[in-house]
């Protein structure tokens, strides 16, 4: 147990001082393994582990869903999604922020990344909200938080990674994400309403939209909805595997982009494909590192020590889950989403299994917590993304604007925790 904790300590230090997360994790894992089994086995294990994971059929969904997101990003849909949402919600107080949340949800339904969602929505929604004199903290906070929907509403890269680490059915996890995703959308809209009720100047109502413009924008919604239904419906009905769904999703997204006048030249295709490849590689180097590190933890005895602790103190599944959530929230303050999943889940897996915790439910809880991590200080990935697109907003203002959504996230976490059916109802229907 001590070995593992020292390993974690060194890893955190390396990461905090700017060493690249993937390389640092792999290095600590390798050395930790070597100290227990010798250098030669540790090196062989590293090579084997990387080759196995690089050739994992299940992991092949990651680049394809990333590619789907890149195509959708390039399809320039966000403007229309936003306008369509505005046509229904714009006239209410805080209507532009409400529209932003709904447009984020729409984008999330066809994109697996929260960063892409936040980035594209910043470009689209900040302008109008400034025009109507929305407070920067409300508008930027809404976008940063709305972006996190990208990883709860399927498709979702973190859900895929959880599925791999915990050996759970990725299809079921996606289906499980649907209701919590809808719940979050409702809660985020509630958060906007509360903010504008307390401070009406922060988000005034917008003007009604030209009906022709509204109809034009609404037409853009249908392909998005169709693609979401095709991908999720296919998984739900077991018509295809998640990997196949991701291939179909990517082709569908490319078709949408093409119909909207994009992806019509070779350089455009090349740029999109290269961008997806780069994102894939950044993720996989972290995945490789974490899986090598997980093998060190695997040998360290920590997972079984935790099982013993759980048995000695007669902890229930619920209590373990609370404990893990607590650590995950702390880690989420500084780590980006994937790191939490990859470092934390393997350690607690045996105790969670021993306590009979429903792993689909647990997966949804963990992803909710990682969503929270994307907007909590000091390191909130989505906050940084909004800031990088809008450099004139102070970081502090965005973090202030995000507070209401952190509360909404915590409520969602509480609700899914007390009512696991929110997560498990739909996947149970699949059986």
């Amino acid at each position, binding site marked *: 147990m001590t070995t593992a904790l020292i390993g974690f300590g060194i890893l955190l230090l390396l990461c905090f001082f700017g060493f690249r997360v993937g390389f*640092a994790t792999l290095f600590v894992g390798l050395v930790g393994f070597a100290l227990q089994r010798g250098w030669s086995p540790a090196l062989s294990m590293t090579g084997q582990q990387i080759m196995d994971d690089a050739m994992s059929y299940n992991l*092949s969904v990651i680049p394809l869903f990333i590619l789907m997101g890149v195509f959708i990003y390039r399809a320039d849909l966000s403007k229309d999604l936003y306008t369509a949402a505005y046509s229904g919600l714009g006239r209410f107080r805080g209507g532009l922020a409400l529209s932003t949340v709904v447009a984020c949800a729409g984008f999330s339904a066809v994109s697996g990344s929260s960063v892409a969602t936040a980035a594209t929505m910043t470009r689209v929604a900040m302008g109008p909200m400034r025009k109507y004199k929305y407070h920067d903290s409300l508008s930027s906070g809404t976008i940063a938080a709305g972006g996190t929907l990208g990883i709860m509403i399927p498709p979702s890269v973190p859900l895929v990674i959880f599925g791999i680490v915990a050996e759970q059915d990725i299809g079921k996890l996606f289906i499980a994400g649907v209701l919590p995703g809808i719940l979050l959308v409702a809660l985020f809209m509630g958060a906007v309403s509360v903010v504008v009720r307390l401070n009406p100047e922060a988000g005034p109502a917008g003007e009604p939209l030209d009906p022709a413009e509204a109809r034009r924008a609404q037409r853009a919604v249908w392909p998005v909805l169709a693609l979401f239904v095709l991908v999720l419906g296919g998984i739900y009905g077991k018509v295809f595997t998640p990997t196949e769904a991701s291939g179909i999703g990517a082709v569908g997204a490319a078709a949408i982009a093409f119909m909207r006048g994009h992806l019509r030249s070779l350089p455009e295709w090349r740029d999109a494909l*290269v961008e997806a490849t780069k994102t894939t590689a*950044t993720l996989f180097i972290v995945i490789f590192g974490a899986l090598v590190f997980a093998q060190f933890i695997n040998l360290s005895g920590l997972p079984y020590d935790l099982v013993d602790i759980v048995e000695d103190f007669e902890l229930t599944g619920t209590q373990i889950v609370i404990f893990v959530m607590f650590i995950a929230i702390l880690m989420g303050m500084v780590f980006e989403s994937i790191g939490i999943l990859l470092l934390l889940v393997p350690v607690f897996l045996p105790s969670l299994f021993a306590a009979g915790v429903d792993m689909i439910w647990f997966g949804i809880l963990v992803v909710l917590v990682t969503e929270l991590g994307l907007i909590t200080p000091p390191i909130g990935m989505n906050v940084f993304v909004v800031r990088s697109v809008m450099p004139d907003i102070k970081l502090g203002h965005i973090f202030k604007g995000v507070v209401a959504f952190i509360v909404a996230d915590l409520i969602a976490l509480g609700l899914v925790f007390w009512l696991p059916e929110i997560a498990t109802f739909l996947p149970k229907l699949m059986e």
Partner: protein
Amino acid sequence: MQSVARAVLPRILSVLEAISAILLFVMMALTFVDVIGRYVFTAPIFGAAEMIQFLLAMTIFGGLSLINAHDSHITVELFEPWLKKRFPRLQPILVQSFSVAVMAIIAWQLTVFAIEAHEIGSFTVVLEWPLVVVVGTVAGLSVVSLIVQILGLMLQDDPEWRGDHGDPL
């Protein structure tokens, strides 16, 4: 040395970009065609799943060179800005040499893995292709990733090169 790197690196990278783009495209197309073949023509592609596995590995290591060249890896920027201010020369050198060292271990071990696959004479499970062809390509790409990473490190003080890439977004 720097000028050589400056001349060579962009060319290597544009070739690697093309390779990775093609690999990912084939992966998408293969998945799609397999499903369509299965449902529309009841003729799935034999071994499609296995081919996708191989394409994944190649795409990852093709993409890794692009990431390595610009050192656009994921970081936790907690104490990093503070350290960079105090040790503006040392911190990046330390961090990047560390990355290169770990990358060297990866490339080395994947090469060893490929050589073993050749010596044992392993075949892939479904398609029964010689395993060394697949893992050898992957190992080769990882070596290229390492070379490109070193070239990128040599150019890290070159403002023209560093301006070459925008926001990693």
